[in-house]
């Protein structure tokens, strides 16, 4: 599309597949929408099909499903205690959705939906919204204790409370930007180094020899990106657990 030049940004362009417009607002089914649906289908199909035999002694694939279930259950229980377990479906869905989206994004020519700030922001706001709604619903104004750490002298509270408020407000920002920036930067870097391989390869024998270096780099980065893809899903889940802990036990820190 961009001629002979490799454009590292092109992979993030949203293209319409089925244009839909309701009330003057554009709700088109785009390539991003396609991969959201693909994430939904792939993750659900995997978890559903691998557990369909309900084997007492699990096979490999069933083990993967069970391990991810146990993994998130343990994460949430450690992060938010047994009272936090009512959010288990939410954290599990978030983790599996982001993980699958990130992993699908690693496939060449596939769209990475988590590289869209609006997607990660929506997920982060969903988490913070849940924390706020549940926190105020459960504890009323007592939820504001979340800004008042226990055991701090009254004078220090003048400094600590504003800091706590700022840190609380920055949570949705950091939660969304962390995932978005990691995925975006990773994919750009991969594309740039892969682009070097192609560009150098056209420069004759010396260029082909020189292209080996970015090729090695691309292979290494691909491995790193798989790690980042998992790690960011994990970090998102861990932070979600931490924030939910505030909703369940305000002032408990």
């Amino acid at each position, binding site marked *: *599309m*961009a*001629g002979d*030049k490799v*454009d*590292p*940004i*092109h992979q*993030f*362009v*949203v*293209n*319409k597949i089925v*244009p*839909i417009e309701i009330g003057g*607002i*554009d*709700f*088109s*089914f*785009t390539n*991003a*929408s396609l991969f*959201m*649906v693909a*994430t*939904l289908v792939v*993750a*659900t199909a995997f*978890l*559903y099909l691998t*557990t369909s035999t*309900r*084997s*007492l002694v*699990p096979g490999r694939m*069933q083990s993967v*499903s*069970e391990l991810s*279930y*146990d993994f998130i259950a343990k994460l949430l229980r450690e992060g938010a205690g047994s009272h936090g377990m009512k959010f*288990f*479906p*939410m954290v*599990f*869905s978030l983790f*599996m*959705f982001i993980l699958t989206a990130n992993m699908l994004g690693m496939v060449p020519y596939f769209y990475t*939906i988590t*590289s*869209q*700030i*609006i*997607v990660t922001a*929506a*997920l982060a706001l969903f988490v913070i919204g849940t924390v706020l709604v549940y926190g105020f619903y459960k504890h009323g104004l007592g939820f504001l204790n979340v800004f008042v750490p226990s055991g701090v002298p009254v004078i220090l509270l003048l400094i600590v409370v504003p800091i706590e408020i700022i840190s609380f407000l920055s949570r949705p920002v950091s939660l969304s930007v962390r995932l*978005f920036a990691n995925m*975006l930067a990773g994919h750009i870097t991969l594309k740039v180094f892969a682009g070097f391989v192609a560009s150098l390869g056209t420069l004759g024998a010396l260029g082909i020899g020189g292209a080996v270096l970015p090729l090695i780099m691309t292979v290494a980065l691909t491995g790193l990106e798989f790690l980042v893809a998992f790690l960011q899903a994990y970090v998102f889940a861990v932070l979600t657990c931490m924030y939910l802990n505030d909703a369940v036990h305000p002032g408990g820190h």
Partner: protein
Amino acid sequence: MIVTSAYAQSTTTEGAETHDAAAGEVHTETGVAHEGGHGSGVFPPFDSSTFASQLLWLAISFGLFYLLMSKVVMPRIGSILETRQDTIARDLDDASRSKAEADAAIAAYEQELAAAKAKGNAIASEAREAAKAKATADRTAVEVSLNNKISAAEARIADIKTKALADVGAIAEETATAVVEQLIGGKVSKAEIASAVKASAK
């Protein structure tokens, strides 16, 4: 500058002013989009014209995913894990119960063995006692009969002795009579001889 026609349409409907403003802003920021050859010129993740559609489709797909997870997949995995835990617990229970039964059987066996041993010892000692008692009784019976025989024999000996002694007196008198007759040729009265014998026999 190649764009899908649909995309181009959407940007034109959005209104040229806002679009140009956004494009200009991002151009200065990234500097990449300009060379990138995109129709809008906006850095795609910050292209707000796609936000509504992305939010809608994210809500649909994630909402559906959440629903499927919480209603279908998670209860299923949970039940699998629970069933497995129950089975393991039940198997462990069975094993410990079997072990308890085996222990009880061993204890019963040992108890019976001890009882049998005690019974055997009792029978043996009883038999030994009986044999001893019988031997003692036999011996005393034999002794009694022997003593009886001895005393009977002794009585007979004494009887024979007295008889013999009595015979000795008569023989001595006769002999004395004969001796006296030979010596003195005269007759001596029987009474005198008898008294003389008696006196000498003392």
